[in-house]
């Protein structure tokens, strides 16, 4: 990997600023400015939080359904199985994030080894 590859191009950094930095800092600075007058339990915020959670859920699904890079080399059934196995262990261990992640990873690695 060359030094230039690690730096990348300025265009990508400009996109990061426009699509990543500004959309996040706007909400933080609005919170700093208008803090106090907002009811945390208001109906609008319940809806906003639900939509934000569902967008994140969609991205989680996208990574598993249309995987990037090396993950695309893993058969569909192993990727879905790994998430399923992780979820079962997560629920069985009273919502341990660590146990769920480890179980999913073990399923993926064992499955890849098994399928050769």
């Amino acid at each position: 990997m060359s030094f230039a590859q690690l730096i990348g191009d300025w265009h990508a950094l400009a996109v990061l600023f426009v699509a990543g930095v500004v959309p996040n800092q706007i909400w933080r600075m609005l919170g700093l400015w208008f803090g106090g007058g907002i009811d945390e339990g208001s109906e609008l915020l319940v809806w906003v939080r639900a939509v934000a959670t569902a967008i994140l859920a969609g991205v989680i699904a996208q990574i598993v359904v249309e995987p990037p890079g090396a993950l695309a080399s893993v058969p569909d059934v192993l990727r879905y199985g790994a998430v399923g196995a992780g979820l079962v262990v997560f629920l069985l261990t009273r919502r341990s994030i660590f146990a769920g992640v480890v179980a999913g990873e073990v399923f993926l690695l064992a499955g890849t080894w098994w399928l050769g």
Partner: protein
Amino acid sequence: MALPPLDSPQWQSPGRAFAWGLRSITQTILTVVLFVTYLGIGALAHDSHFSLLWALCSTLFVWAGPAQIILITTLGSGATVIQSAIAVTVSAIRLFPMVVSVLPLMRTPTTKRREMIFAAHLTAVTLWVECHRFLPQVPRERRIAFVHGLGCGLVSVCLTANTVGYFLAANLTQTLGAAILLLTPLSFLFSTARNSREVADVVALALGILLYPLAAKMNSGLDILVSGLAAGTIAYGVHWWREVRA
């Protein structure tokens, strides 16, 4: 490590308070979860053809894991800058109530707004959770310094994890590379599920996952927004219906 009592001379200087904040990152399992998550983000950035500098800048200046993976995933799969910006803006709205609820914990009657800008920038879900846990044990006039220390510690952990993840993805075999990439969906799925206390949150998470493949079939370029708005609104409907019946 326990924090010193509120009246201890340890709290007399802001520098000491910063150092206690920095050391507090060793007192929470969330630091490990963050490390694993940002390891995955570094690997995801590599395999989606972003540079290491780009990944590090996104951690430093965006500082919100969900926004970062939405950005990398949408841009990496060919969405336009506008489409990504809309998806990230919607996902970032949840930072607003977090900042609103966390800043009063560190404000004194004489605190000026500009003194809290950096603390507002550092606010994201992990810091928000930890502030509610740690700040009652910190004297009020040292809380901003403490939060700066805690936040800088967490950011450093994540920058390190990004770098490690990026080089692992570049150098590991395909199988191990796939395992590192799978860390992101697993850690986000379980940490979001763990933070879901209300029915609306659980429904939004489950439906959001199930509706995405359907929305993707429409191929509108706005798949994430379509499935997110639909699933989120249905989840809100469930919440509303339960309130009405109760």
